[in-house]
């Protein structure tokens, strides 16, 4: 409301040219104010008066931002352009200002925009009054009732949904991704890994345990783990040729016991083409657990 008060105040004092200009929300607002103070008919603008006054005011306007400043400037340019089109030199007795066809059109458009803005401004004032009246009336703003089970879709605009989504995304962004250091390799862990694998399969390939990356550290740790297992008698290792694949087999005697609770784990006993072949010569009947654990290999083979 301060803007409007300022405007009306200005209208009262404005015999000179002192107005609190910063309260104008746009060039049309300023122009409208000038028309009012000059008691000018909105469909018969006097370009000379209005342009001069507009430019005078423009000097004292403090713009909020570049864009607003731009819109004031565009209006100034339009006014100056129109004024330059006035065909005859100013005649104080003659109220009519003669323009060429284009100028006339431009002027009419400007007048129409002004009238339009005047209507909007009046409606804004009307709404302000309604709003003021409503501040004297109090009603419930939050329900006593539990919220309905179905979401009222008619009140959900795309904008609200989009905003909610954006908030979620922002929240997500704020969570800085955590750097996860890979666990340092440990011989002990590799040993138990291999034992675990050997529970569900008869034999492993060294390369599949060491991982596909062929990292030197991996290979070293895996080899050390294997040697340790062999030393402890928990696994056997065979290498058919120099630099060839090392086949790791379970040492049947020692692994039998932990194998009792073994479950078929198809993922881990995975592709090992040599496995069935190696299995075959294994002597004697298998305990239950081991038979179960051998199945994945067989089904793969079939």
């Amino acid at each position, binding site marked *: 409301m301060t803007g409007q008060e300022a405007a009306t105040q200005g209208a009262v004092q404005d015999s000179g040219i002192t107005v609190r200009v910063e309260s104008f*929300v746009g060039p049309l607002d300023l122009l409208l104010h000038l028309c009012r103070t000059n008691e000018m008919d909105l469909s018969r603008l006097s370009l000379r008066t209005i342009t001069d006054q507009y430019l005078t005011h423009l000097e004292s306007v403090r713009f909020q931002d570049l864009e607003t400043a731009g819109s004031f400037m565009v209006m100034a340019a339009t006014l100056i352009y129109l004024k330059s089109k006035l065909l005859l030199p100013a005649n104080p007795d003659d109220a009519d200002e003669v323009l060429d066809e284009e100028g006339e059109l431009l002027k009419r458009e400007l007048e129409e925009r002004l009238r*339009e803005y005047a*209507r909007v*401004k009046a*409606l804004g004032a009307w*709404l302000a009054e309604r709003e003021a009246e409503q501040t004297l*009336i109090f009603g*419930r703003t939050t329900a*006593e009732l539990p919220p309905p089970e179905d979401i009222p879709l008619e009140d959900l605009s795309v*904008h609200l949904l989009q905003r909610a989504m954006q908030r979620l995304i922002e929240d997500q962004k704020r969570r800085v991704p955590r750097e996860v250091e890979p666990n340092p390799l440990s011989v002990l862990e590799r040993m138990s890994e291999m034992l675990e694998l050997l529970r569900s399969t008869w034999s492993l390939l060294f390369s599949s345990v060491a991982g596909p990356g062929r990292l030197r550290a991996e290979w070293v740790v895996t080899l050390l783990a294997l040697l340790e297992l062999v030393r402890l008698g928990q696994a056997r290792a065979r290498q058919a040729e120099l630099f060839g694949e090392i086949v790791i087999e379970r040492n049947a005697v020692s692994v039998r016991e932990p194998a009792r609770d073994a479950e078929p784990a198809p993922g881990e006993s995975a592709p090992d083409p040599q496995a069935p072949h190696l299995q075959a010569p294994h002597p004697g009947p298998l305990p239950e657990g081991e038979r179960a654990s051998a199945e994945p290999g067989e089904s793969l083979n079939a």
Partner: protein
Amino acid sequence: MPELIDVVEALLFASDTPVEASRVQEVLDLDSPAAARDLVDSLRRRLDAEGRALQVMEVGGGFRLVTRPEIAPWLVKLARSRTRSRLSRPSLETLAIIGYRQPVSRPEVDAIRGVNSDAVLENLLERRMIRIAGRKESPGRPFLYETTREFLVAFGLRDLADLPKVEGELIVPELAETAAAQLTEPPPEHEETAAADDPAEQDPGSGGDRVTASS
């Protein structure tokens, strides 16, 4: 068994949004919305006759139970706060444009106001006075805005037809040439308003006069 009229009072008391006549009908198992409206009307008369602090108000397509304005000073005291956030002048003017021309895009609002309305629209969206109604099939496919029910409630309007009549249409400047031709003719009534008007409930005194007088 409570009387129906008492139940209506309770419904309006408990609800945070305006209760439509059809909703009253549904809850009370009445024959028609008109019967519901009759009940609400008799409740209104009863509250008025007894000079109660509450009144029935018709806003946003439904009914609300609200305090009478005379009670406001005590309520302000109770709240220990005088301030209720009000909308700025640019916001109100933008709302006026949207109220009359909805659905309307930002470029159209900008053209009428002569300034960029981005921040104002954002604020109005934030306060749920307007919402996005879709996109306009024009270059850039700008959003279209329309007013919400909260807008009607905030300004105590039954519906959009409650907005005052304006002298002539609210015209986008692009169309100004056709408008110029109409200028000499007597101002036509605002079409939307005229179409949706309920003559019995029209209040020509407050709105129309003021608008024409000030332009």
